[in-house]
């Protein structure tokens, strides 16, 4: 007997696990082991994506990994992903030269709640590679700058040479309508900026906690401490959003790998409000 009527047979069911083949258009090294890949799509229209969503990228013959979009949502035909080589697949991806094929499927997941940013201060806090998934949000916020209050980007990374998107950061730093602070864990000469964890920058940032939307992306421990610091500063846990990371194999909520408490992060996240994450984040090895 066929499944219940609540699961109708769709005639045009897509093949959700089949990648589209695209090529590397350009590859740029951003930091040690970090590369930004700009992909060429052979004329095939690419689906629009939301800031904070991710694609599954395939290095043919090696494997597949989830990688957030790091490009501009206003230009979805220009697929941009920033990858750190930390394993076999990401290592293979960053070695792909211009013209080399790779597989793409997505976009997947729920992104940053930018629809809630209208009329509010927006605080973006990035740790390390976490700047990459926040960049599409910043593009979108700056494109409609007049709709928001103060926009602040706090960025912490290991050392000066790990700073991503330097030229863009320099350009953003000269804008009068964006407050930008960068801190490093370990300074090397000639670094003259902040030294220390990114949470230390929060005290100096100007935002109205009652009407602030906070977007956090980085290592889990950095996000946890940042979220707690923001709560202490008076920002509601519902207004703080974290981009969570777990192992992901399918991207469509059926492989089970990305579970975090009750969440299937590929489907329910990766971006979730701290109000829902606070309790599970306190449980070790969840």
């Amino acid at each position, binding site marked *: *007997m*066929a*499944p*219940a009527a*609540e*699961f109708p*047979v*769709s005639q045009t*069911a*897509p*093949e*959700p*696990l*089949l*990648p589209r*083949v695209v*090529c590397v258009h350009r590859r740029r090294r951003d930091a040690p082991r970090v590369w930004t890949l700009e992909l060429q799509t052979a004329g095939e229209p690419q689906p629009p994506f939301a800031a904070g969503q991710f694609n599954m990228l*395939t290095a*043919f*013959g*090696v*494997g*597949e990994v989830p990688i957030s979009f790091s490009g501009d949502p206003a230009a979805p035909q220009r697929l941009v992903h920033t990858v750190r080589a*930390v*394993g076999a697949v*990401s290592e293979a991806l960053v070695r792909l030269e211009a*013209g*080399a*094929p790779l*597989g793409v499927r997505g976009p997947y997941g729920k992104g940053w709640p930018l629809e809630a940013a209208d009329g509010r201060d927006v605080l973006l806090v990035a740790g390390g590679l976490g700047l990459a998934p926040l960049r599409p949000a910043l593009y979108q916020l700056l494109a409609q700058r007049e709709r928001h209050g103060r926009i602040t980007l706090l960025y912490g990374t290991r050392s000066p040479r790990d700073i991503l998107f330097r030229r863009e950061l320099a350009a953003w730093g000269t804008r009068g309508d964006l407050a930008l602070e960068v801190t490093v864990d370990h300074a090397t000469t000639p670094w003259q900026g902040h030294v220390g964890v990114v949470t230390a920058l929060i005290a100096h940032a100007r935002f109205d906690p009652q009407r602030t939307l906070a977007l956090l992306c980085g290592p889990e421990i950095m996000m946890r401490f940042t979220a707690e610091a923001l709560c202490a500063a008076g920002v509601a846990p519902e207004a703080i959003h974290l981009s969570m*990371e*777990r*192992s992901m*194999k*399918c991207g*469509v*909520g*059926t*492989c*089970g*790998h990305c*579970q975090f*408490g*009750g969440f*299937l992060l590929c*489907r329910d996240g990766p971006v979730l409000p701290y109000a829902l994450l606070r309790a599970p984040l306190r*449980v*070790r*090895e*969840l």
Partner: protein
Amino acid sequence: MSRQTQCAHVIDLEGLQQLLDALRERGYRTLGPTVRDGAIAYEDIASVEELPRGWTDEQSPGAYRLRPSDTDTVFGFAVGPQSWKRPLFPSHQILWRAGVAGGKVQLDSEPHIDAPLALIGVRACELSALAIQDRVWLGGAAPDAEYRARRADAFIVAVNCAHAGGNCFCVSMHTGPEVTSGYDLALTELGTEGEPTFLVTCATEAGAAVLETLTRRAARDDEIAAAQAVVAHTAASMGRAMPETDWVSRLLVSPEHPRWNALADRCLACGNCTMVCPTCFCTNLEDTSDLSGLQVTRTRRWDSCFSVDFAYVHGGSVRPSIRARYRQWITHKLATWPQQFGTSGCVGCGRCISWCPVGIDLTEEVAALCAETPD
């Protein structure tokens, strides 16, 4: 129920053979229970001779034994290690192949078109498991086309359980032992003396069409009553029961319960429970290539949350301890599954209890986890 009793008929073994023949003539691949390697397995069957007639089982935590039955019944056993997950969602499926040559990639994702499946001897708990898997594979944004095809084409012959296994707890999960929906034909084995006879009811047009072709007679009222007595007797002899507490809520607030430590001391993290569970759906997607690197295959395989690799992110596993992995399995199965898929992930079949090499009893653990929850 009225419709079922209206079309209630009685067939004997010859009629059951005719049922197998009729399904095979209609192009179905008939899968049913048979004895293999000292257990009941779901295999291709063409003849009623292959059914486990005269066999029953003894099950307790960490133990499963087939033994000759005192009776000559055909379905006088409880569920074995396999479930219908295996034919409907195979443990190993090729998603696509790719040929890589000259900087170009040719993707090939020919769907696997199998003969439609006829599942013979599906128990009530297993029908519940199918309904749960439907929600997982078909209820989301990206329904699985192959699963859908197999499910849509399947013909299901259910069986009302006449024997409760030592680890069965379907009554406390409200999933059995009586089959109520999700089947085409349902059998109840009548009596334990002499040649087996079966009360047959149908729930679909397809079931009725097949039933019409069998040598049969209308069921008498006393036979209908006897069939109801069979499931009532089974319901009254359950091997175990889940505690009568709100274990969904209790588990959600008990991630630091000391019982997890005691469990971790026993659990071997072998993953047996996830393999025999009829609803466990976790998979891994693996890429392999030939030696030249030019032919690439992506395969989806059953995976288990008990493996260290399962929750690996760069830098290590999120759940390195067995305690965390066991907690993930039970909490997901019983407490977070509802928020993910709108249903419990457990049907009370008891397989995880029988096939756990150290005999961890899910019902006992849940009772302990709910009993003395620390604040």
